């Protein structure tokens, strides 16, 4: 194996560990910290099913963002949908042809949509970057990391597109490398420059995910303003530390 391949094997394992470990750690923290009071933003659903629907609409359609800012909504929504399509296309690198998933992953529609999604992704991201630069309010609230995050993902999308349209890489060898990671049967990684750029940026994204605003993805499910059922009068809501206060003075007896 080449030294480069060994380096990337190590980096990939590290990235997966950081990504999974980091997000798990954060999710467990969000679960552990209690929400002591009922604070859904109303009108709010009165059932758990209603809450699931509310969150689904936020995740699929970005409902609230649609109400706030049509430009941010259109660019943001395009980017996220494109990201999802690109993700489906990339499954071909981790799904073996004898897997039951292969017939779906290899569908023409999945593959070509995933390909063109790359362009949509860049459009969405450039739109978001444009807002950050040109809208004075958004410029004021932006930190260097906010720009870098957009540039990082633009870099991933552009390098990905380049491998499709400019400099092709050995995807058979690439798949062997990735499958090797899962099977602990490590293989060489093609040493094409663009591929290395693409993978390196993805690795950086994985390392950064659990310590950055990308936490909005899991965090969305934990916002009490959106995930609580509107039933405070019917069901008594009490946090462990609220219960401790009560137990101490007995005034709620």
């Amino acid at each position, binding site marked *: 194996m080449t030294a480069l391949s060994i380096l990337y094997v190590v980096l990939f394992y590290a990235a997966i560990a950081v990504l999974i470990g980091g997000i798990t750690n*954060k999710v467990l923290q*969000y679960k552990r*910290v*209690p*929400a*002591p*009071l*009922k*604070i859904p*933003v*109303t*009108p*709010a*659903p*009165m059932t758990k099913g209603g809450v699931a629907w509310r969150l689904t609409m*936020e995740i699929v359609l*970005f409902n*609230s*963002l649609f*109400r*706030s*800012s049509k430009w*941010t909504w259109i660019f*943001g929504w395009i980017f996220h949908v494109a990201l999802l399509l690109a993700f489906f296309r990339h499954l071909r690198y981790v799904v073996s042809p004898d897997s039951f998933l292969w017939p779906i992953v290899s569908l023409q529609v999945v593959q070509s949509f995933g390909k063109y999604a790359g362009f949509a992704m860049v459009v969405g991201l450039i739109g*978001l970057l444009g*807002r*950050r630069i040109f*809208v*004075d*309010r*958004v410029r*004021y*609230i*932006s*930190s*260097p*990391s*906010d720009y*870098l995050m957009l540039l990082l993902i633009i870099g991933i999308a552009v390098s990905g597109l380049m491998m499709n349209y400019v400099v092709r890489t050995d995807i058979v060898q690439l798949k062997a490398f990735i499958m090797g990671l899962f099977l602990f049967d490590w293989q060489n990684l093609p040493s094409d420059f663009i591929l290395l750029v693409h993978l390196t940026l993805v690795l950086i994204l994985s390392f950064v995910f659990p*310590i*950055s*605003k990308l*936490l*909005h993805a899991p*965090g*969305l499910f*934990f*916002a009490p*303003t*959106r995930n609580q059922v*509107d039933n*405070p*009068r019917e069901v*008594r*809501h*009490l946090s462990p*530390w609220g219960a401790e*206060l009560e137990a101490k003075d007995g*005034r*709620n007896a």
Partner: protein
Amino acid sequence: MADFEIPETHEFPVIPTVMEGVMSHSAPFLAKEQFQAPLGFPGNGELIEGWKETFLEKLGEMLGKYRSLQVFMDICVKCGACTDKCHYFLGTGDAKNMPVARQDLLRKVYRRYFTFAGKHFPKLVGAVDLTEEIIDEMYSYYHQCSECRRCSVFCPYGIDTAEVTMAARDILAHVGKGQKYSNEIIGKVHKIGNNLGLPEPALADTLEGLEEEVEEDTGVKVRYPLDEKGADILLVTPSADFFAEPHVDGLIGYGKVFHAAGVSWTVSSKASEAANFGLFIGNYENMREISLRIREAAKELGVKRIIFGECGHAWRVAYSFLNTLAGPWDFLDPNYPVPQHILDFTSDCLDRGILNIDKSENDWMTLTFHDSCNVARASRIGSYPGSQFEIPRKVIKAVCNNFHDMAPETIHDSTFCCGGGGGLLTDDLIELRIKGALPRMEALKNVIEDKGVTHMAAICAICKSQFTKVLPYYGMTMDQIVSVHQLVSSAIILEGQGDEDEAEADTEEAA
């Protein structure tokens, strides 16, 4: 009239250009020891010794106690959706009045001391050291937020600046930077029972006066009872209802509705205040303490139900938190919601046809309705989501012939705060209050010009007081704000009242 410019109103809202620091001079008076100590806060209006450690320790504690704070500190992506949603930003143009910028005052300190990125790459992620200047900035701008939650409605993740403001205020109070206005008032509630410091005899006197007034007015003996054991209903209402205009006209209305419905009710001198400023300062213990008075009063008086009068944040605490803070309410009649909103009660009476209404009594007015933020975005009134918007309008339309809503983007859950909520209803913040009222004033002016609206009805004591104060600055008059139950009160014909009116009319005709 004032040493600052009153903002101009426009036909359509104008999003101001971002300006830095134009409101950095605004800050409410600090609480001296006499107002800090009774609430369990240290200091004398100055930073206490070891403030930095205390601040960070308290912040860490809050992060462990409030999921909202922990999640909201982490997940903001700075998309900018909230930046043009805050009435204080729209009214002042100050950059730090954009909700995300306001949150960032605390978030940048959180990042510096509690996150990997902020500890190691502060410049990259906008993390900063905690300094006295940062504290002063927080004290200023966390008192330029009325905790109205409008930003939260528009945030793709539901990040609620109110939660951040409350946490920040609580932390500030713990390092000696408490707010005089709220803390002094909470002290009065703990000591006397209401925000105004009205003792029992004064209250009895006031209610007696009301009875006389109503009898003079209608010829009917409507009771306004105090501390009456065995009454069915305990009415908990903001103390402003006992004397302020137009609040008191609302209280008169509640009494008439209760009278017409034939129910027995009472006010309690112990819980003679619906307001709960513990919410404003973000302090669970104080909020609970204030709520527990209601539990004690309900037990002592042996009531079966609890009804809240017109008050915004009080209704939020009542509807959303009372069960948590002062429950369980298993000793009350389970056939009624605990607590119930006075409008729910009145609306039900109207449905059952037990109120005799003469709408023409309100014909001289054309009404609009101001949704109070805490009712609109933090509670419900009736049995279904959104009833907090429909029930007040239904009641107004049942007692008035002329009604027009303001522009759709300024009502319901998009409603604009009056500019004085969240513990800011104090004269030391008058500039902020006037400027923050701009979006609401704009919407009101437009409906006055286009639809001939003459009066705006509200169901919140703070809104009513705030509008009374700021309407004149925008070229309107203070009496253009009315209570919803004031409208009910004018239109309701009590049994025995009609005869006399007719008799009067007859004599007039005869003469």
